[in-house]
C-alpha cells in the first residue's frame, strides 16, 4: 500500500466517528454539570466563617487550578504515549491539550488574584500556590512556542513531547522550591499545615464544577483534534498532486 504520509498509518477515520459522538456527550455533560455547579456555588452554599461571600470565587478558582495541572499531566502522558506506541494521534492530543491547559491556568491566575485581593490587600502577593501556577503557565507558553517555532511538524511533535516530559518531571521540584521560597519570606499557616479543611457542604459545588471543567476539556480537546487532523489532511492533499513518493530503480 503506498502510504503517502506517516499519518496514513493511524486511521483517523475511526477516530472521527468516535470523536463526534464523544464530543456531543462531553459538551452536554459540561453544560449540565456547570449549571448545577454554579447554582450550588452561588446560591445553595454557605458563606465562609472568615471570608464571607468572597470565598465563592473558590468554586471557579480551585477547579481551574486543578485542571491546569491535570492538562499538563495529560500532555506529558500523551507525549510519552506518542514515544512508546508511536501513535501520531497521541502527539495531536498533546498539541491540542496545551492551549486548553494554558487557558485553565490563566483562569486560575485571574480568579486567584481576585480572590486574594481582599485577603492580602494586593492583586498579587506571590502566594506559594499562585506562584507555582504562574510558573506552570510559563511551562505551557514554552511548550506552545516550541511547537510554533519548528516548521516541520513531525519533528516539532517529538521535540515538544520531550519538553513536556522534562517539564512534567520538574513540576514537583518547582512546586517544592516555590513553597520553600515562600516559607522563607512568608511563613505558611502557623496553626495547622495539614492542608485546607473544606467543610462538607462546600464540597458538592466544588466537585460539580471540577466535573464540568473536565467535561469541557474533553469536548474542547476532541473538537480541536478533529480540526487539527482536518487541517493536516488538507495540507497533505495540496502536496499530493505535486509529488508522489519515488522508488529506487537500478539502471
Amino acid at each position: 500500500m503506498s502510504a503517502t504520509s506517516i499519518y496514513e498509518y493511524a486511521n483517523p477515520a475511526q477516530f472521527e466517528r468516535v470523536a463526534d459522538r464523544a464530543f456531543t456527550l462531553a459538551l452536554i455533560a459540561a453544560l449540565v454539570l456547570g449549571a448545577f455547579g454554579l447554582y450550588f456555588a452561588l446560591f445553595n452554599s454557605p458563606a465562609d466563617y472568615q471570608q464571607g461571600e468572597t470565598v465563592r470565587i473558590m468554586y471557579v478558582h480551585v477547579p481551574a487550578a486543578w485542571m491546569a495541572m491535570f492538562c499538563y499531566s495529560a500532555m506529558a502522558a500523551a507525549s510519552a504515549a506518542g514515544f512508546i506506541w508511536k501513535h501520531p494521534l497521541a502527539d495531536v492530543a498533546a498539541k491540542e491539550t496545551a492551549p486548553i491547559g494554558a487557558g485553565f491556568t490563566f483562569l486560575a491566575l485571574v480568579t486567584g488574584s481576585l480572590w486574594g485581593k481582599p485577603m492580602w490587600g494586593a492583586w498579587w502577593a506571590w502566594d506559594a500556590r499562585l506562584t507555582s501556577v504562574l510558573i506552570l503557565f510559563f511551562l505551557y507558553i514554552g511548550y506552545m512556542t516550541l511547537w510554533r517555532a519548528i516548521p516541520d511538524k513531525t519533528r516539532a511533535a517529538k521535540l515538544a513531547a520531550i519538553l513536556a516530559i522534562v517539564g512534567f518531571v520538574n513540576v514537583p521540584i518547582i512546586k517544592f522550591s516555590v513553597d520553600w521560597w515562600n516559607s522563607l519570606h512568608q511563613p505558611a499557616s502557623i496553626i495547622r499545615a495539614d492542608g485546607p479543611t473544606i467543610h462538607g457542604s462546600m464540597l458538592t459545588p466544588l466537585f460539580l464544577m471540577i466535573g464540568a471543567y473536565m467535561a469541557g476539556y474533553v469536548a474542547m480537546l476532541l473538537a480541536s483534534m478533529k480540526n487539527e487532523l482536518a487541517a493536516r489532511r488538507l495540507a497533505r492533499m495540496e502536496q499530493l498532486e505535486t509529488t508522489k513518493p519515488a522508488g529506487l530503480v537500478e539502471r
Partner: protein
Amino acid sequence: MSAFAAVIVRDVTLAFRAGGGALQAVSFFALTIVLFALAVGPDLSLMSDIASPVLWAGALLATMISLEQIYRPDREDGSLDALVECGDSLVFIALAKALAHWISTGLLLVAAAPLLALLLNLEGSALAPLVISLLIGTVGLSLIGAFAGALAAALPRAGVLIAVIVSPLYAPILIFGSGAASAGAAGDPQYGANLMLLAASSLFAAIISPLASAAALRFNLD
C-alpha cells in the same frame, strides 16, 4: 584522549576564540549589573541589600543568552553528524557539551561575580556564599540550558525561544541559589539547607538533561 574530553577541549577552545560565547556572556553579565545600578541609583545601603539576588539573576540571564551557541553551530556546520555517529554514546557527548559550556561560560561568570559585587557594594560576608552558590548553581544552569539548546538546535534564531523554555526550569535553581547567597550573607541557619537543595537541583539536572538532550538531538539531525 577520549571523545568526551575532546568535545570539552574543543568547545572550550572555540568559546574563547573569535565569536565565541564565553566573553559575550560575561560582558552581558557586567552590563546587566551596571544598568541595574544606574536604574537603582547610588543608594549604597539599598544596593548592598539587593546585591546577592541581583548578581544571581544577572548570572542566570547571562547564561541564558549563551545557550544558543551550544548546539546550533554544530548543526549548521555538520559536526553534529560526527558527534552523533562517533563511538561514544550520545548521552556522554551531551554531558560533555554541557560541561564545556559550564567551564567556558559558568566559571567565567563566577570569576566575574566578585568584581561586579563591588559595583553593588556587596558586604564582605556575602561574597563567599555568593561565589559558592554560583559555583554549584551554574552547573545546573548549564545542564538544563544545554537541553534547551539541543531542543532548538535546528532553529536559526532561537535565543528567545530558549529563554522561554528554560526559565520555568531555572526557577528552582534561582530560588535555592539566590536563597543560599542571601541566607549566607545574613548568617541565616538556612544557608546550609539552601546550598544542599541547590546541589541536589544541579545533580537532578545532571541526570535528566543529558538523557533528554540526547533524545532531542536525534530528532534534529535531518
